[in-house]
């Protein structure tokens, strides 16, 4: 038992007790307490077990810098959060907190065996061990290390809370509401009543360090009054500035409900503020440094500022017999202040030879024994401090002082994380023993302790406290959360690491969730001593957002579940849903993949759909195809320059399959397009390529060929497209169409006619992606559903069958029609893909033409598209499977290419596949091999058209 509640004092509400649970046991605190102060008030000193060694750990600091007291808070199913810092958690009635990283209990933790094995577990041990035997890594070492690693447990349930995000513009944003921040905000708001000034602070209430200094409480009250009188000053407590990004864009996370009892928590849990500020004023203060000595991680050893905050802000004595070790005057002022508040401070040990006479007198006046030119060389006690061992700095052992709490005052480090995010530079200050801000990059400045503009008194820098004991026997901690000792840092230097970036990563110093708030400078000092270089020559590591751990939910806001990505649906989608379609995502579109009937699985449904289309007629929603209306006197000239095909001679009323390359000569997109008039084309692209193709065209039109008189309009969503494919297609739509002669003589394949269908305008394309007689009925999207239903009814006597993308894929593969992005991968030229016929031989130039002549592009052995027929017709190859010539060769084998499309073909009664194969066009009839884990399949190379090579089924 060490800490206890003082009879008076503090800013807590002693009339409002709050009950909470800690590791299942009930405790009482007061409204205004945080979890740390409430537990220390109840005599708790053990808060956790360290990451690697499972050493017993207590509270180190009372702020964002706390590295040890990481707890899990349970607010119900899906609301269990691990790794929260106890001093950052305001208590509420019914709070349920548990400790972490211990089994079976905090007091009796089996993991403590790691502490005895610590000689074998120094920094970077995992880079040198657990290597042999190799087989043991996967089954034994890795699972064991994973179980042991980590602090809290990851939540298993989905987060049911929702999170808000808001944009805010302001003239001045002040980050940090301690005395300096409050003054800066009030000054800015008074200077210009039209200026929007926002003041944010991570704590539950504003005041910062003033909350722990009763001498400043009157000033603070007056400041509150000033603030309420300023309508242009907005104050946001519970709001942490997490990132300072380009052009004065600051992200801050505001906690909205976690401080409330569960029953009162309604609405969003957190709010992400996205500030764009004219000026950012950083007032984030400074954080006290621990001292480095053997046993400095024993529960009960904490920062002097934590002792002050506990006593003066929360009315909690940190111990019954408190010793203080200082190398800085602030340790003295803190000790004297808490002694005056009734805490039993017995001794101040200071490693400096001289300390100001005023401080010595004031300390003695409180009955404190002072020991200057003395060092702490050890701490007795395991689960909590029982005594402090001291020695003179000259080296002679002096005394063992009974104590249940040891406060450390090692100096102050200005908090410059956000300054660093904003690319402000820093310069070393010997007096502070830390970096201070130097040149800003954004429109920002630092005020208060963060800028070195605060007096904590003076001090001396000691990388580690002097000790006569041999260094290799000591456990003197630098990074408490990652269990990094002074020994580890010296080891890294001995092993050859010179740059602070390497030392940091090798030892993991400063890499825990506290981002080195209490360890960066101590680590830097020890490294620089080991390297015999000044600190400025060793450097400082970079700070990266977020400043403190931030909930994923806060960052993602509403972008989850159904709102994660827009889902684009065609107008036919509800009909497909009503008819039992199974859907798949194609880009952001939701497309029907197949329409299972009864108990059909996908294969049964697809086989049935395929048979139905070729036997009679199938109906397919092709509305997602990209469509661009190309209009203007230079429309044909423009398309001629973009595509490989010749367009100028295409008559109105005719269609052409267009192939689009990049300037590098590789296939980018394709689509059938129609000419409606000399100056008007209806262009189509692949579903996934629509935006990309339009962007590419705009690029050329705006930046290369601005002289062309043509303009482009995206019409993808304006047209619904109903594909009707099969021998009965014409019969089905004949009664519905008006003003178009559908006879084969009047309406040949690859033609377009305008007229009406079901009374609405239509652009009727006679095109086929299946190899059967086919039409693509384009109607304005608002009429799409009506026309679909009409065709569906009209098709009933012909057993019209709805089919999805899977069947569409099979039918086109049987005919050897490629799908860009599936059969092509950005490395195929038109010749590689068997599409030389689509390249206009007489065209002087088009995008990509020049590249087709490059030596690489005409060299033998290029991958080319071929068909593959398996020796066993029932084997359906896996898409992506690799192809080799000789399956007996040693690994790694020479891979000739891979399978791009593979299906069971009902029409052929066997499997088919398309593949990219090196020199494929010259391998017709050859046998190749597909090695798979279970078997190697033999295949014969064929052409890509498996069914009806003469196209007679189209000619009806």
């Amino acid at each position: 038992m060490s800490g206890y509640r003082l009879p008076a004092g503090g800013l807590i509400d002693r009339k409002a007790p709050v009950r909470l649970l800690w590791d299942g046991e009930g405790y009482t605190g007061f409204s205004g307490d945080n979890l740390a102060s409430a537990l220390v008030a109840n005599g708790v000193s053990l808060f956790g077990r360290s990451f690697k060694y499972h050493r017993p750990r207590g509270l180190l600091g009372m702020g964002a810098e706390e590295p040890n007291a990481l707890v899990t808070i349970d607010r119900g199913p899906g609301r269990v959060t691990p790794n929260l810092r106890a001093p950052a958690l305001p208590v509420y009635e019914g709070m349920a907190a548990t400790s972490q990283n211990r089994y079976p209990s905090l007091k009796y933790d089996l993991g403590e065996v790691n502490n005895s094995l610590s000689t074998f577990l120094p920094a970077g041990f995992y880079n040198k061990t657990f290597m042999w035997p190799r087989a043991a890594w996967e089954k034994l070492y890795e699972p064991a290390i994973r179980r042991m690693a980590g602090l809290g447990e990851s939540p298993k349930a989905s987060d049911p809370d929702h999170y808000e995000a808001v944009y805010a513009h302001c003239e001045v944003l002040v980050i940090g509401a301690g005395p300096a921040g409050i003054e800066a905000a009030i000054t800015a708001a008074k200077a210009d009543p039209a200026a929007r000034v926002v003041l944010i602070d991570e704590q539950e209430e504003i005041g910062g360090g003033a909350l722990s200094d009763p001498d400043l409480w009157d000033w603070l009250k007056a400041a509150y009054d000033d603030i309420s009188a300023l309508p242009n000053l907005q104050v946001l407590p519970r709001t942490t500035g997490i990132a300072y990004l380009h052009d004065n864009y600051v992200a801050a996370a505001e906690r909205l409900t976690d401080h409330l009892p569960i029953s009162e928590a309604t609405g969003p849990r957190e709010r992400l503020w996205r500030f764009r500020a004219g000026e950012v004023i950083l007032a984030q203060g400074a954080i006290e440094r621990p001292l480095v000595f053997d046993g400095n991680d024993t529960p009960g050893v904490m920062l002097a500022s934590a002792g002050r905050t506990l006593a003066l802000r929360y009315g909690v004595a940190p111990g019954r017999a408190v010793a203080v070790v200082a190398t800085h005057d602030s340790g003295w002022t803190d000790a004297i202040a808490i002694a005056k508040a009734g805490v039993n401070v017995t001794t101040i040990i200071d490693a400096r030879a001289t300390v100001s006479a005023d401080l010595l007198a004031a300390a003695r006046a409180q009955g404190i024994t002072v020991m200057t030119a003395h060092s702490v060389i050890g701490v007795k006690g395991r689960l909590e401090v029982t005594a402090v061992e001291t020695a003179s700095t000259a080296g002679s052992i002096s005394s063992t002082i009974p104590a249940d709490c040891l406060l450390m005052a090692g100096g102050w480090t200005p908090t410059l994380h956000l300054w660093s995010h904003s690319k402000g530079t820093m310069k070393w200050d010997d007096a502070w023993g830390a970096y201070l801000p130097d040149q800003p990059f954004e429109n920002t400045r630092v005020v208060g302790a963060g800028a070195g503009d605060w007096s904590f008194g003076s001090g001396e820098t000691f990388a580690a406290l002097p000790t006569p004991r041999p260094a290799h026997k000591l456990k003197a901690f630098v990074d408490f959360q990652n269990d990094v000792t002074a020994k580890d840092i010296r080891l890294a230097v001995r092993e050859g690491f010179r740059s602070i970036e390497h030392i940091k990563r090798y030892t993991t110093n400063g890499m825990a969730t506290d981002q080195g708030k209490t360890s960066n400078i101590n680590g830097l000092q020890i490294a620089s001593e080991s390297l015999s270089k000044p600190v400025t020559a060793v450097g400082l590591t970079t700070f990266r957002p977020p400043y403190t751990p931030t909930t994923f939910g806060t960052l993602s806001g509403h972008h989850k579940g159904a709102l994660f990505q827009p889902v684009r649906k065609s107008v036919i989608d509800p009909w497909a849903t009503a008819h039992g379609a199974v859907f798949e995502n194609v880009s952001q579109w939701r497309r029907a993949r197949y329409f299972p009937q009864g108990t059909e699985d996908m294969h049964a449904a697809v086989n049935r759909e395929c048979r139905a289309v070729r036997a009679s007629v199938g109906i397919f929603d092709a509305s997602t195809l990209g469509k661009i209306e190309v209009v203007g006197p230079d429309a044909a000239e423009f398309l001629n320059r973009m595509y490989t095909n010749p367009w100028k001679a295409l008559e109105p009323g005719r269609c052409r399959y267009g192939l689009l390359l990049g300037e590098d000569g590789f296939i980018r997109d394709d689509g059938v397009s129609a000419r409606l008039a000399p100056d008007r084309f209806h262009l189509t692209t692949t579903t996934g390529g629509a935006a990309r193709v339009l962007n590419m065209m705009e690029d050329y039109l705006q930046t290369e060929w601005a002289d062309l008189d043509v303009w482009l309009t995206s019409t993808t969503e304006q047209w619904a497209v109903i594909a009707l494919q099969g021998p009965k297609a014409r019969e089905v739509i004949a009664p519905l169409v008006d003003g178009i002669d559908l006879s084969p003589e009047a309406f040949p394949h690859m033609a377009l006619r305008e007229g009406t269908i079901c009374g609405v305008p239509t652009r009727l394309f006679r095109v086929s992606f299946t190899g059967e007689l086919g039409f693509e009925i384009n109607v304005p999207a608002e009429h799409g559903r009506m026309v679909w239903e009409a065709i569906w009814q009209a098709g009933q006597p012909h057993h019209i069958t709805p089919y999805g993308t899977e069947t569409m894929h099979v039918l086109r593969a049987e005919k050897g029609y490629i799908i860009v992005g599936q059969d092509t991968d950005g490395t195929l030229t038109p010749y590689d893909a068997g599409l030389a016929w689509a390249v206009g031989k007489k065209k002087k130039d088009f995008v990509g033409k020049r590249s087709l002549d490059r030596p690489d592009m005409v060299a033998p052995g290029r991958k080319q598209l071929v068909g593959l027929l398996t020796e066993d017709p029932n084997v359906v190859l896996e898409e992506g499977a690799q192809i080799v010539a000789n399956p007996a060769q040693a690994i790694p084998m020479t891979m000739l290419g891979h399978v791009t499309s593979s299906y069971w073909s009902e029409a052929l009664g066997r499997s088919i596949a398309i593949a990219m194969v090196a020199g494929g066009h010259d391998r017709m009839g050859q046998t190749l091999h597909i090695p798979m884990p279970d078997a190697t399949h033999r295949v014969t190379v064929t052409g890509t058209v498996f069914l009806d090579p003469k196209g007679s089924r189209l000619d009806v």
Partner: protein
Amino acid sequence: MLLIHCPYCDATRPELEFTYGGQAHIARPLDPSALTDAEWENFLYIRSNPRGRHRERWRHTHGCGRFFNAVRDTVTDRFAATYRTGETGPSDADLGGAQ
């Protein structure tokens, strides 16, 4: 979150509204067939990679949809200027010295 000034909208908008468009002022050769393979390779693939001022293109994709040019420092990400397609933009001297 960079702020970029669109010279067509004459408005400064967050980078979310824009798409990067690669190095600027690379004109497509009027007669590609007249180029050697080395010259064509240069056009296709060879780009400057300066540490400092870079003349590049951006498109105001979620805005007016226009392509425009910019001078941006690749180290500081500061935009020294943005100007319309077809214009030459400020020289290094105009911007205060060579880089």
